[in-house]
């Protein structure tokens, strides 16, 4: 993809394989789970890039690879102009001040033995962002207020909060170090509809207020489309299509994107009656032994022989719309 000065993040040819070892006394490396297999994308400063796909497509691994949770199998991650895949652990710790993560499960991602205040304040301490105790207390209170929680809740423990409130704590903690990029991995999927909307609105408000850039990873296309400026669709370790939210909805090119869009019901019976339904057959194949050629060809309604032989090139079809399909 072209280098752009506006890009806060560029991911080039990212590969993340997880080894599969045989059982026994001497484990042998027998195969790899190709969770992410050679993907390239960029995130522009101030935008929200949505990453959507089904379980096992590698969307979470992409987020975690960008955060350098793993040693990458291949590729580079350029964040604010610097290749962070080569950084040493200490330098990376510094770098994480600029990029933070929000997780799916607000129940297991917060330490049950820490108060809300100390959970939010921990990164402030680690990155030494306050000089005095008073300043620290003030920052924690301000963060609570920013995410719509009452400062007096600072001394409560996670179990005393509801799911939505816990996710607010997770967001406050991510904001504590004033990052420029936030990677949110399924941040609202564990929440009920009415609470989900509160958190989505909060995230949008915070983006405006603090000029944040988001990578929003989720399986729910309606939510992703709502919050994103551009959307990347993943299937079995590959990005199959990237386009702006409207372009992707109005002019989807990849047959998988089309099927995914048609599978998401719209809460309106009248609209539903007029929609085409493309029902894919079968299940997602195993990422240990993905199909040859285009990985989607085993389920693709328009696949031709060539699709099982040739890996389609990820190419720009104009309008910043990228797609990997031989039939487009």
């Amino acid at each position: 993809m072209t280098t752009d000065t506006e890009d806060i993040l560029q991911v080039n040819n990212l590969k993340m394989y997880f080894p599969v070892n045989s059982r026994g006394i001497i484990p042998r490396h027998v195969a790899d789970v190709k969770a992410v297999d050679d993907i390239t994308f960029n995130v522009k400063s101030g935008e929200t890039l949505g990453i959507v796909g089904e379980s096992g497509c590698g969307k979470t691994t992409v987020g975690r690879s960008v955060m350098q949770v793993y040693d990458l199998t291949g590729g580079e991650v350029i964040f604010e102009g610097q290749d962070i895949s080569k950084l040493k652990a200490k330098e990376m710790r510094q770098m994480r001040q600029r990029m933070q993560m929000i997780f799916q499960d607000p129940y297991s991602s917060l330490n049950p033995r820490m108060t809300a205040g100390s959970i939010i304040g921990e990164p402030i301490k680690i990155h030494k962002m306050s000089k005095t105790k008073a300043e620290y207390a003030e920052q924690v209170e301000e963060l609570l207020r920013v995410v719509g929680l009452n400062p007096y809740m600072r001394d409560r423990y996670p179990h005393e909060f509801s799911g939505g409130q816990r996710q607010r704590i997770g967001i406050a903690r991510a904001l504590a170090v004033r990052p420029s990029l936030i990677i949110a991995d399924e941040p609202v999927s564990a929440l009920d509809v009415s609470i989900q909307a509160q958190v989505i609105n909060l995230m949008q408000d915070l983006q405006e207020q603090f000029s944040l850039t988001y990578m929003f990873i989720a399986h729910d296309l309606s939510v992703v489309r709502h919050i994103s400026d551009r959307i990347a669709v993943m299937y079995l370790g590959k990005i199959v299509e990237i386009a702006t939210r409207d372009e992707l909805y109005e002019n989807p090119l990849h047959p998988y994107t089309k099927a995914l869009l048609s599978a998401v019901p719209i809460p309106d019976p009248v609209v539903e009656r007029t929609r085409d339904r493309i029902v894919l057959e079968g299940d997602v194949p195993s990422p240990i032994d993905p199909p040859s050629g285009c990985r989607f060809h085993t389920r693709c309604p328009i696949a031709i022989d060539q699709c099982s032989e040739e890996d389609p090139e990820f190419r720009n079809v104009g309008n910043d719309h990228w797609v990997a399909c031989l039939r487009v």
Partner: protein
Amino acid sequence: MATEQRKVVLDIKDLVTRFYTADGVVKAVDGVSYKVHEGEIVGVVGESGSGKSVTALSVMRLIPWPPGKVENGSAELNGQDMITMSNEDVLNVRGDDIAMIFQEPMTSLNPVLTIGQQLSEAVETHMGKSKKEGWERAAELLDMVGIPDAANRLHDYPHQFSGGMRQRVMIAMGLSCEPRLLIADEPTTALDVTIQAQILELIQKLNKELGTAVIIITHNLGVVARYADWVNVMYAGRIVESGPADVIYAQPRHPYTVGLLASVPRLDSDRGSKLDPIPGMPPDLMNLPSGCSFRARCKFAIDKCAEEYPPMELVSGEENHHKACWVDITTATVRN
């Protein structure tokens, strides 16, 4: 309405189910009534804790005592009350006339029995078929729910099936004795979007072809819009609005339904449209507020809402659309 002339398969009246826990009494279902007609798909929609699943479990007599107890009401399945029926009769009816499929297909299947053993068991028990006939029927069922190479896959164990395939097995099991009513409790929540579509299309196809009445219990307003003929919206253990799907989505009249619809992002929404979430949280079912349990989150609430719970009443000017709300939101002023 056509549904009025159709035969009633299930008639739930004033159902009350409570759980007696160490912390207090949970009013999980607090006076629920609804009907399901022959060949109809009824969507029961609500958020966690709204009582949508507990209602179905009560009907199925699957509420464990202690701590749970059905304290009031009836649920007539083809005229027989499930609630007062003897345990023995319940065993005969369950699987035969009424079947239920659950959210977690992995935990609902026995891991040490083959798919074939589990599928043929119900047929042998309820339909008095021989082992051989049972096995043949199992192969037929598996084929019907779209599992390729069905006859051979009967020898497989649940762990050899994917999530979507396990849910198909559950549906096959549910349908094995051709029940009049299938209750699907969040049947696709644990599944991926494209697999979800496969399963729901399958349920709809079976509804059309076999005439099985279906209750789909879900939090997903889209699923209900796509598949249900009739919608019951539940909040804090009660139905707050009910009516034909088209009417509920086009002219919701309960503030909770309105709020719910404004909270969900739509795939076809315009750029920059904002969600309008319902403020606050659902009430604690152990300490329900006086009057209407939604009033604390309601922008239309008036003094009367705190005094008395509104009964389900016909929406004025409509014949099939009921709501439990004191306020006419089409003319009311918004509270500050």
